């Protein structure tokens, strides 16, 4: 949806991730960019260059925070130190909404630093939703959860991934960061029709979209964010926009990062899809051929 309560009723357009190799270009050329997405964990520090750089960016650009380690789906309670630091950063950036992944990654205080897929059970959905509500109440900012790409499925699952996502966001009353590339990757890894996913998530809760590139291996696809999105992902993006309307969109490019202009121009391809007026109803979009899926990973830990 163009603007809704999950993205602070904003219309952000098309952004890119704020990445170290582009700092010099951004500060020297001051390019026009709709918005930047920052990895929250890279700036949840006490001082030094990361915060200095962030403040300069905040002076000139709109910024949205994206996290990689909240682990709403971990069975253990939220990490209070993490929340405290995140809230400090939220106050600094004034992010209109905040995103993290619908996944787990820690057990007994031990961290995997990965976005591990959930078993799609009602128990997991209930616990995850509870943690999202707790985080939102503490952080006092709308939260949107992102679907991850995955390489494994659990015997314990009681529903599809999109049913699980719906169950969680309805229970938590939160928004969705819909990662179209992750849907594509997962659809290939788990042999489902990506349009089944996109058609069946609650469109009114989609506050933001991610697009990215991935890598194909012999037996699975890995979510690598190391090149431009492939055409089938752009087509899937187009179908998504037709269904839900122009939505804040972010291109992720985290490894083998090319020049700022190349990344930004690639992201701006989203604009042509956003000009398409959404039809009243379109649930019969042509399916993309099924493949396999992989697990998304966003670069964390930056020495700036």
């Amino acid at each position, binding site marked *: 949806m163009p603007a809704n309560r999950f993205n602070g009723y904003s219309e952000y357009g098309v952004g890119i991730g704020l990445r*170290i190799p582009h700092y010099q270009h951004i500060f020297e050329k001051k390019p026009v960019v709709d918005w930047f997405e920052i990895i929250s964990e890279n700036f949840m*520090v006490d001082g030094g260059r990361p915060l200095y750089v962030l403040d300069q960016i905040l002076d000139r650009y709109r910024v949205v925070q994206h996290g990689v380690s909240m682990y709403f789906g971990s069975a253990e309670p939220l990490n209070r130190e993490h929340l405290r630091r995140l809230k400090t950063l939220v106050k600094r950036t004034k992010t209109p909404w905040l995103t993290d992944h619908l996944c787990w990654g820690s057990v007994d205080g031990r961290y995997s630093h990965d976005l591990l897929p959930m078993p799609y059970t009602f128990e997991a959905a209930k616990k995850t939703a509870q943690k999202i509500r707790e985080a939102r109440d503490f952080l006092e900012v709308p939260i949107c959860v992102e679907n991850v790409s995955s390489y*494994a499925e659990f015997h*314990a699952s009681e529903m599809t991934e999109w049913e699980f996502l719906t169950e969680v966001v309805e229970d938590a009353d939160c928004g969705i960061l819909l990662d179209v590339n992750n849907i594509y990757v997962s659809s290939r890894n788990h042999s489902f029709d990506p349009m089944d996913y996109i058609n069946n998530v609650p469109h009114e809760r989609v506050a933001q979209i991610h697009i990215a590139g991935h890598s194909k291996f012999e037996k*699975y696809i890995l979510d690598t964010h190391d090149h431009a999105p492939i055409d089938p992902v752009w087509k899937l993006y187009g179908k998504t926009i037709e269904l839900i309307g122009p939505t804040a969109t972010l291109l992720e490019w985290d490894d083998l990062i090319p020049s700022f202009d190349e990344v930004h121009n690639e992201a701006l391809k989203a604009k042509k899809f956003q000009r398409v007026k959404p039809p009243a109803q379109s649930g019969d979009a042509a399916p993309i051929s099924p493949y396999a899926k992989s697990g998304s990973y966003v670069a964390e830990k930056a020495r700036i």
Partner: protein
Amino acid sequence: MNLEEIQRAVLGVIQQPLTASEGMRKRTLDGKPIKKIVDAIIKPNDRLTSFERLEIYNRVYWFRLISSLAEDYQGLHSVIGRRNFEKLLVAYLRDCPSESFTLRNLGSRLEVWLRDRPQFAPRRHRIAVDMVRLEWADIDVFDSDERPKLTEAELRNLGDDPVFHLQPYLRLLDLAYPVDDLLLKIREQQEQQEEQEKDIASNVVMEREPHNRRKRFSLPRPKKTYLAVHRQEMNVYFKRLEPEAFALLGALQQGKHLSEAIEASVEWSNRNVTHVTGNLHGWFANWSKLGWFCRA
């Protein structure tokens, strides 16, 4: 199995060290068959077995964490060599899995861990520990807090025997080897290599650097070295200190009054009190210029 049991079992497998050929082990380190654990939890598909599907996560876990530590501890890598370094990283991560939400803190326990395990730095244990201390201080100083600096007027009005507050980012290290010079040489070489690689592929900006091509550096002889790791204009610097100055700063950092800090410095360095007091003015002028004194 409930959610917690599934997650504990899966993470337990993902954190098992890889085989020599970088695959998933057949048995856990305590002898449990991994296939049996995984088959009970993970579905196979038409291309991959349950084992192969979880192996993807097992490999990603180790590649990511080792890559992160390798980036942070390039000096240690150079000191102990590639093979020892790889063994050390795996053993460290096995004993000290990450307990922080951020990879920044992954090496926070490496110094303590390595002190008790000289076998991971054969014949170079002491210099390896020194290098780890310096590299961790470098990480820590980079993004630590900075408080408002004391102005000259504020410094003059502190009273006769004040307590000086030092910047939270300041770290003091007493080292057995001059590893600061060595680390700077290693980084210089690394930067040159990166520049060369940029020239080779000028259309692609690489964020990470492969760690396998590494020049060998001759290691320094032991030399007691007193170091302040600090920050200026957002950059981290290493500043050598005289032993008495080091002791004095250490006492100030503990919150001692100036007179107590001078006493501590004299006692610790076994020097005449006039030697310390005679240098006080110069030391304080320099530290003040560097902005090390801050408001409480």
